[in-house]
């Protein structure tokens, strides 16, 4: 989804660091209806005056094409708020619950030298538990900011105030880390280090109104919260498309040769490019795909990747490549087709202004980032924008580029009939009710999958978890392997039971396993499972059209469901299971459990 050019222009003209500028941009934006189809609702449960964040948060949410709604619980009444009827009404409609706590207000005794941090840690953990229980979606916690001017900074001891605050922050970190996809941690301490004392604290309003933060700090806090919502809504970018010359290294390989290009761990100017490559490796390890799109002789590029002594990126790190002299916009379209991903999940990095403009103009859904004129800013360029922030990193993510390579091998399989090919794959699948260790991956798939997704409903791990326990809900997962390797958890079906009707709320498959009839095996297996456990008289299913999921418009009819209604973008289908035989393609082996 892409915000209209006009909305984008109004927002990008504003400078997020400046309060008057953000306020007037919002003033203009909120006068009009931009037709944003998706909303984002954020609720603050807090112990200090945090209302000043509202314009910044709305600004950053609009920038991700989300229609924001922001609400605040009572001042310092977290526990009462989260059991109130008001919260009960908001609970399921809220995307992000923010527990915003300052240490001084949470534990007034923390200002005194004899403060017992152990006791505070216990109370803090109990409050985290409580907020997590009362949240129906994503929960955001924060760290506390240690003293910037402690007494005794020359001879620090673990028992110092700083040390005790670190202990509290470790508790928050551990709490979030052990609940992937359900709890995120906004590291206030890190934001304060970015900004420094002057830009972080308003000591004056801290005392006068319990509003201790400067606008600059609230802006960064809002930006991090917006990253979390964007990740939850499936807005994270998935692919970085890279130019080579003056992007992955300094200089031009075709002119300067392997010896002449600038790339070195310690010597400028090559060291900035080396660190940029290292940043790309970090992204790849988090499951972001890398692809090359450059004007070069292909052999020279592969030679540089293979033989330059300091080149960190190797051929196998790239999921796709287009190296040649054609139009880059066309190359991007063909890479999108090859990877079966939408162009709106692409970030394009190039040093040439002309190439950047060309892509911006012809493919407005692609995020374009020009290599900065100050090379020293290149290594942090991608990290600062938060475009790739995801809520969880799964085992599948780390293996992603390996899987894409295996895919390429699969496609290079010898010419044979489709049937022979499918038999030769030796596909083995498991279908079972979701296990607790699979919940983050299931939530991630609902957040990221666009193409083979019948209803495109996005869910948090907390929501999936509650259905896993609910006898009137079923979450089924598909795990696949074949002779080339393990493809991991790649399919999800969610159903609800009401009386004698079973409704399929969600059916999705990762795009890397399509075209192999696995969807038939999976759905048949799920329907058989639900038939025997729930004994429904009727299955009901839906298809909700988006710009991405046209390929599955007639899926339910292929599965012998009949269409019973259609309105706008939504069609409803039904199937009477009595007497129907469940069929699984003969070349797919099903393992129990």
């Amino acid at each position, binding site marked *: 989804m892409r915000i209209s050019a006009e909305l984008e222009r109004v927002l990008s003209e504003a400078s997020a660091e400046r309060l*008057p500028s953000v306020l007037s941009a919002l003033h203009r934006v909120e006068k009009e209806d931009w037709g944003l189809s998706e909303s984002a609702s954020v609720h603050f449960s807090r112990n200090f005056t945090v209302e000043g964040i509202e*314009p910044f948060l709305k600004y950053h949410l609009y920038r991700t094409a989300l229609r924001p709604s922001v609400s605040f619980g009572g001042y310092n009444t977290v526990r009462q708020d989260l059991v109130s009827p008001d919260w009960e009404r908001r609970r399921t409609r809220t995307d992000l619950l923010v527990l915003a706590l300052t240490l001084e207000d949470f534990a007034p005794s923390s200002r005194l030298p004899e403060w017992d941090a152990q006791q505070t840690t216990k109370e803090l953990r109990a409050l985290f538990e409580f907020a997590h229980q009362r949240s129906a979606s994503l929960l955001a916690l924060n760290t506390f900011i240690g003293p910037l001017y402690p007494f005794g900074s020359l001879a620090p001891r673990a028992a110092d105030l700083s040390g005790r605050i670190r202990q509290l922050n470790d508790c928050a970190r551990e709490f979030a880390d052990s609940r992937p996809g359900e709890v995120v941690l906004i590291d206030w301490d890190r934001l304060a280090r970015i900004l420094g004392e002057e830009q972080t604290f308003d000591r004056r*309003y801290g005392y006068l*109104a319990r509003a201790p933060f400067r*606008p600059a700090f609230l802006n960064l806090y809002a930006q991090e919260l917006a990253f979390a919502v964007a990740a939850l809504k499936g807005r994270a970018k998935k692919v970085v498309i890279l130019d080579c010359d003056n992007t992955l290294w300094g200089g031009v390989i075709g002119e300067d040769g392997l010896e002449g290009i600038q790339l070195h761990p310690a010597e400028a100017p090559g060291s900035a490019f080396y660190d940029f490559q290292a940043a790309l490796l970090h992204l790849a390890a988090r499951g972001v795909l890398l692809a090359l799109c450059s004007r070069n002789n292909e052999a020279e590029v592969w030679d540089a990747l293979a033989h330059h002594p300091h080149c960190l990126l190797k051929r196998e790190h790239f999921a796709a490549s287009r190296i040649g002299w054609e139009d880059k916009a066309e190359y991007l379209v063909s890479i999108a087709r090859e990877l079966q991903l939408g162009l709106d999940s692409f970030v394009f990095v190039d040093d040439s202004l002309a190439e950047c403009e060309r892509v911006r103009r012809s493919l407005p859904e692609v995020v374009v980032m020009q290599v900065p004129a100050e090379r020293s800013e290149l290594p942090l360029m991608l990290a600062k924008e938060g475009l790739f922030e995801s809520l969880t990193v799964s085992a599948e993510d780390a293996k992603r580029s390996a899987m894409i390579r295996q895919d390429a091998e699969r496609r290079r399989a010898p010419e044979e009939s489709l049937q022979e090919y499918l038999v030769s794959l030796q596909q083995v699948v498991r279908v079972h009710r979701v296990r607790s260790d699979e919940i983050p991956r299931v939530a991630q798939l609902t957040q990221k999958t666009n193409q083979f997704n019948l209803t495109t409903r996005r869910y948090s791990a907390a929501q999936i978890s509650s259905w896993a326990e609910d006898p009137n809900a079923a979450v089924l997962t598909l795990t696949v392997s074949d002779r080339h390797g393990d493809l991991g958890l790649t399919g999800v079906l969610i159903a609800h039971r009401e009386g004698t009707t079973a409704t399929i709320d969600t059916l999705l498959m990762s795009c890397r396993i399509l075209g192999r009839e696995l969807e038939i095996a999976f759905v048949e297996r799920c329907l058989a499972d639900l038939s025997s456990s729930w004994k429904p008289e009727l299955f009901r299913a839906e298809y909700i059209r988006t710009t991405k999921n046209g390929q599955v418009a007639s899926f339910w009819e292929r599965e012998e469901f009949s269409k019973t209604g259609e309105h706008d973008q939504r069609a409803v289908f039904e199937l009477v299971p009595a007497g129907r035989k469940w069929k699984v393609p003969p070349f797919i082996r099903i393992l129990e459990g």
Partner: protein
Amino acid sequence: MDDGLILEARMKEVFGSVFNLDRDEVSPEISMQTFGAWDSLRQIQLVLALEDEFKVSFSEKEVGSLSSFTQFFEALRKRAQR
């Protein structure tokens, strides 16, 4: 345009963005007593926005006592003259 008029125009811009009004709708008569939307939270936002716009810093005493367009105008004009 003299300095006072320029100051007034820029202030109206900031008041407008804080109170969600167009610049022309901001009257110099506006004060905390006469304008319902001007509550204590708006007061904070207004002070911070004016400080940002005019690169000044109001004292603790001022942020507690300045409560009308004219009072802010005087406080800012005094700073400009210094």
